[in-house]
């Protein structure tokens, strides 16, 4: 079954963040809590909505990921770009820190 994580934007600075196992939000996709199945996904979204109410993040949603290559990658290209940064500016965004 496909694994999923939750992606959102941080309210204050707009940066992309992922819901972690501890209920916090990390800029690093490697820290994201992976869930499997509808129930786990809904439970995670509930946590995300609480964070929205708490004004930490905005617009959370579930995305599919793939860990088969050893590295955690979103399956959708758009989400990969969101995770790393613009493909045309490798010097900015999270990819620059790698």
């Amino acid at each position, binding site marked *: 079954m496909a694994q999923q994580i939750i992606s959102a934007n941080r309210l204050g600075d707009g940066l992309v963040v992922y819901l972690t196992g501890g209920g916090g939000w990390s800029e690093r996709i490697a820290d994201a809590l992976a869930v499997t199945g509808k129930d786990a996904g809904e439970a995670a979204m509930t946590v995300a909505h609480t964070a929205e109410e708490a*004004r930490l993040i905005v617009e959370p949603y579930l995305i599919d990921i793939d860990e088969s290559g050893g590295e955690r990658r979103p399956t959708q*290209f758009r989400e990969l770009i969101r995770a790393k940064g613009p493909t045309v500016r490798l010097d900015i965004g999270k990819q620059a820190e790698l």
Partner: protein
Amino acid sequence: MYLYDPIDQSLVDQRVEQFRDQVRRRLAGELSEDQFKPLRLMNGLYLQLHAYMLRVAIPYGTLSSHQMRKLAYIAQRYDKGYGHFTTRQNLQFNWPKLEETPDILAELAEVEMHALQTSGNCIRNITADQYAGAAADEIADPRIAAEVVRQWSTLHPEFSFLPRKFKIAVTGSQRDRAAVRVHDIGLILKCDETGSMGYEVIVGGGLGRTPMIGATARDFLPKRHLLSYLEAILRVYNQAGRRDNMYKARIKILMHALGAEEFIRRVDAEWDAIRDSAVDLPAGEYDRIAAFFASPHFETLLKNDGKFARYRLEDRDFAQWARTNVAPHKQPGYAIANISLKSEGGIPGDATTEQMNAVAAIAERFSFAEIRVTHEQNLVLPHVRQADLYDVWQTLKNYDLATPNLGLISDIIACPGMDYCSLANARSIPLAQDIGKRFADLRRQHDIGELKVKISGCINACGHHHVGHIGLLGVDRKGEEYYQITLGGSADENTSLGEIVGPAVPYDKVVGAIETITNTYVGLRTDGENFLDTYRRVGKAPFKENLYAAH
């Protein structure tokens, strides 16, 4: 250019403080995101793929050096050292923080700038011919009307909650450099038989998912009735435009549904009621605004400068730049210098802090401190002495701002696409770069001649692909980036919408397809025909055949 009076200045200052308080209340939990989102959009602040995005208004694309320096500073202090000039003559910052946006707006207010109405269902930035006030073929400066309309439309209480966004463009020349026929309202300056000035008013043009060419609502509107007639159009739209479906909410859809005749009848009926009321601008006020657009103090010079001619003979590279990037000026001895923001390997429309500061300095020294932004994502120095062009070019070269490709195949319009924009289905920028690289040879570019390639990363068509000679629309096919190719579009006075030539092609086949298209054109053209001429003569069949020939 227009300078704020105390009322204008207090408007933007108060707006900054209002937004500052709205941000404070949002962060403190006194406003929900649902409540806050329309408020931040009214100040041009979007939430995008990687971060917030702030769209700064540059009214009719006119900037002073002082303002450009402020934009450069904001890019450095509050962003990542660059900004993006857009297809509506605005500037976008891609990495502002919400917490710092009130400070950014305060910085902008210091130089008479703002981000008002660059988003939301309101009247957006009024765009105009980038050669306004300088072009040799101009009847009058369209920015006077643009400024009048800007003031009328800013915080207009009746039109702040339209069914959808509303875009107006103005041209002062029969040569349309403002794409007026694909705007919600397009205005063309003209004179009647007595020599009185007025406008042809075109309504219902647009791009996006249902591209349409606007229809003439009024062939000659006297100058003094500009605002009452626009008010009548907006009232009919505001009342009858659809609010149930955002994809059917533009004025072009309403006009199409009613039919042009019925639409115009309703506008005329409304106009009858308000025509001689206080809506129209008093003549004195029009003249007061017009005075801001008086020509700078030009020197009296010979029509053709000897130095300029000599440098072109002596320096081939300079001659090459002058050939594409220099346009004729109405004042003898002067010229219009275009700054291409489409360098090889660069990002179309992007400029760094350093480049913005360089342009500000060059403009200050050589162009009466005035700069223009074009809807094709380039910049213009509108008033340069021909004798100074060589110095201008040499300085531009130091900042990678002297690419001699204006109007050639590598002068590509590309929206930010999926590298930046949350609406996109595919990327635009790397495709523009790959096309530019394939056609990097300038001799080849000149042989191909004028060829406008326009790339949109989604159906919203911010890259204006419908009016590209070659248009590319990015689509998502089962997770892969594919591009639909259209041919024969044009945004000038002979406006046409591109025709889809066949099934969409995958990313790695697009550059080859472009090459097939240009080769087909070169093989079919007759003397003096540019790409568009040939396409209009032969139609899409030969292109379709070569592109999709059975293997």
